[in-house]
């Protein structure tokens, strides 16, 4: 029997799914990506280095900040440019805003309806008006962080090679700090909503990959943690293998021959001891114990991260507002070199590696979180007959469960084809 799901709704971008069920066993599970190729890596060759982050942010309108900043980071590593602390803190804040707005969108508007069997968000909005307004408010705060520091919430403008081209207005940062403090409760309430959902039982071991560092819950900076290994991004990129099957417009990746998962659940798995207090409380209340090999919990992990990001933003803003916000002119003496950059995007670790000569891009490779997750998601779907009750449910409901798992990964199809 063939399972076929055309146009999976409520994910970022277009994809469909096919598989065969042979005597109750799922075979050949495949996510087919239905996006056109835009050839970003190709079109950026021969262009000026500073155009890279600007144009590459257009890979994704849900997570443009992380594409922009990872592009800059790769160039800064290639050129050995050091950033001052203020610029790093401001970029970290932009990333926290990015995670809040993207997670809030996915949690509330993409994934939540699945738990109630709603086919449209309108049903959800009508049934849960208060939660809807809370989710919108939480998302607004995330957007505001990016807008105030980045100059605009989609496709930010202020980041530049070696720092930022404009410091934010301290008055607006104070306003932002108030907004964050006033809405932390709402973020926690949203977290509680996701805590009380029933996540389907499913188990398949995998390895979790994310950035990790000793000082904080790694988002902007860190080594790549793969099991017991801690690798520099450039070392990881030497070991990870990108592959492209026939007719695939989105590549997949494997590490040492195995699929792996990136994203909120991977980060929580690797770094939960670094969570801020309220997020940690939520985690404890959830009863999640690591290792936890159930990708549906990626949803809950995102909800916990939203709370962490609120707390972290408050912490960083308080620190920033103790002194004058001044950016120093970056020292750029060389524009030839090779380097890699990695940042935790909402959906997992994003990698850019770049080679430039005298300020012109010669080579570029981008590995997005969804490209990394696709092989793991397909491997999960191959085992999907083991989800509780699969054999007894109707064909239609099977498709619903499959879509629910796909959405739990929060795939960004647009990113995966870039």
């Amino acid at each position, binding site marked *: 029997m063939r399972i076929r799901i055309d146009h999976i709704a409520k994910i970022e971008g277009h994809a469909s799914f096919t598989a065969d069920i042979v005597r109750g066993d799922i075979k050949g599970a495949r996510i087919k990506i239905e996006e056109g190729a835009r050839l970003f890596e190709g079109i950026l060759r021969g262009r000026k280095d500073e155009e890279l982050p600007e144009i590459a942010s257009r890979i994704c309108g849900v997570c443009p900040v992380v594409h922009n900043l990872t592009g800059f980071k790769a160039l800064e590593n290639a050129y050995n440019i050091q950033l001052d602390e203020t610029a790093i803190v401001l970029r970290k804040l932009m990333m926290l805003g990015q995670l809040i707005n993207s997670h809030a969108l996915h949690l509330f508007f993409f994934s939540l309806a699945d738990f109630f069997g709603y*086919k449209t968000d309108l049903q959800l909005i009508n049934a849960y008006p208060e939660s809807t307004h809370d989710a*919108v408010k939480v998302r607004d705060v995330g957007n505001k962080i990016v807008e105030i520091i980045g100059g605009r919430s989609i496709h930010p403008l202020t980041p530049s090679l070696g720092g930022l081209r404009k410091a934010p207005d301290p008055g607006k940062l104070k306003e932002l700090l108030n907004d964050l403090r006033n809405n932390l409760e709402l973020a926690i309430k949203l977290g509680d909503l996701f805590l009380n959902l029933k996540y389907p039982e499913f188990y398949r071991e995998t390895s979790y990959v994310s950035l990790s560092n000793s000082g904080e819950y790694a988002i902007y900076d860190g080594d790549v943690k793969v099991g017991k290994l801690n690798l520099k991004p450039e070392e990881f990129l030497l070991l990870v293998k990108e592959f492209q099957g026939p007719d695939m417009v989105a590549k997949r990746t494997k590490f040492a021959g195995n699929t792996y998962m990136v994203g909120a659940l991977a980060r929580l798995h690797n770094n939960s001891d670094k969570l801020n207090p309220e997020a940690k409380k939520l985690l404890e209340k959830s009863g999640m114990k690591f290792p936890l090999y159930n990708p549906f919990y990626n949803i809950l992990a995102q909800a916990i991260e939203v709370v962490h990001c609120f707390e972290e933003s408050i912490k960083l803003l308080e620190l920033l507002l103790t002194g004058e916000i001044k950016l120093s002119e970056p020292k750029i003496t060389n524009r030839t070199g090779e380097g890699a950059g990695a940042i935790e995007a909402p959906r997992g670790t994003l990698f850019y590696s770049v080679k430039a000569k005298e300020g012109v891009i010669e080579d570029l490779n981008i590995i997005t979180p969804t490209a990394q997750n696709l092989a793991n998601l397909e491997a999960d779907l191959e085992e999907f007959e083991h989800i509780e009750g699969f054999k007894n449910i109707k064909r239609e409901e099977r498709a619903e469960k499959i879509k629910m798992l796909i959405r739990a990964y929060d795939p960004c199809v647009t990113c995966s084809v870039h």
Partner: protein
Amino acid sequence: MNKEPKKPVIAILSLTCCEGCQVAIFDLGERFLEFLTKVNIGDFRLAEELPDVKHYDIAIVEGTAITKEQLRRLKIVRKKSKILIALGACACVGGPQEIKDYRGDKNRLLRYVYPNIRGIDNPNVKSVKELVKVDFEIPGCPINKDEFFSVINKILKGEKAEIEQKPVCEECPRKNKNCLLLLGKPCLGAISLAGCGAPCPANNFPCDGCRGPRKKINLEAMKKALKYKAHLHDNEIEMIMERFGEKNEIIKNSIKK
């Protein structure tokens, strides 16, 4: 008894793009929720998965049709819609994916990105109006969500919506003082269509014309200014005008001497 007027049926369709313009619609927040109460949703894949309907009063299309399937869908959507709105730089002028068409052999770029190119569509990128009839364009990368909200409300009320033909310079906080072009930065504000509120120059970022050109621009004067004020070579000027695929449109809109 008065019958309540029928709500207009709206569809939001996304072709190949970053989907940032749809995100901008979500970013309207409370205003977006209010908007949802005034319309019936015919198709909005980002928020629902109900079966499709036969007729749309307004279809909003973002992105460019790159795959054959997207082209087919675009044509179907045109047929079933009363009004079709092209949303954002990709739909209006082609978007960054059009850069490849200006850079020589586009299949060389395809081979650079993919080891197996079989089955991957790589046509010349076309804006929506080059493929089907478009009734209104809301430009920008991303769109200005406030402008979108005002335009869509006017269209819903049956009023005439219009984007005023004026340059970005008129909205620029740096005009008269600290003009980026006069400071030697490659700013296209003078030929580009305003309505964005000039967030780029306000953040020290030169305008690169994501909203496309105004009508009847003096391209030669712009090129001269970029050459002498910003010290750019011809090729560098071309490359800036390609960023959002707007170069063809710029040439089309320039006055012939």
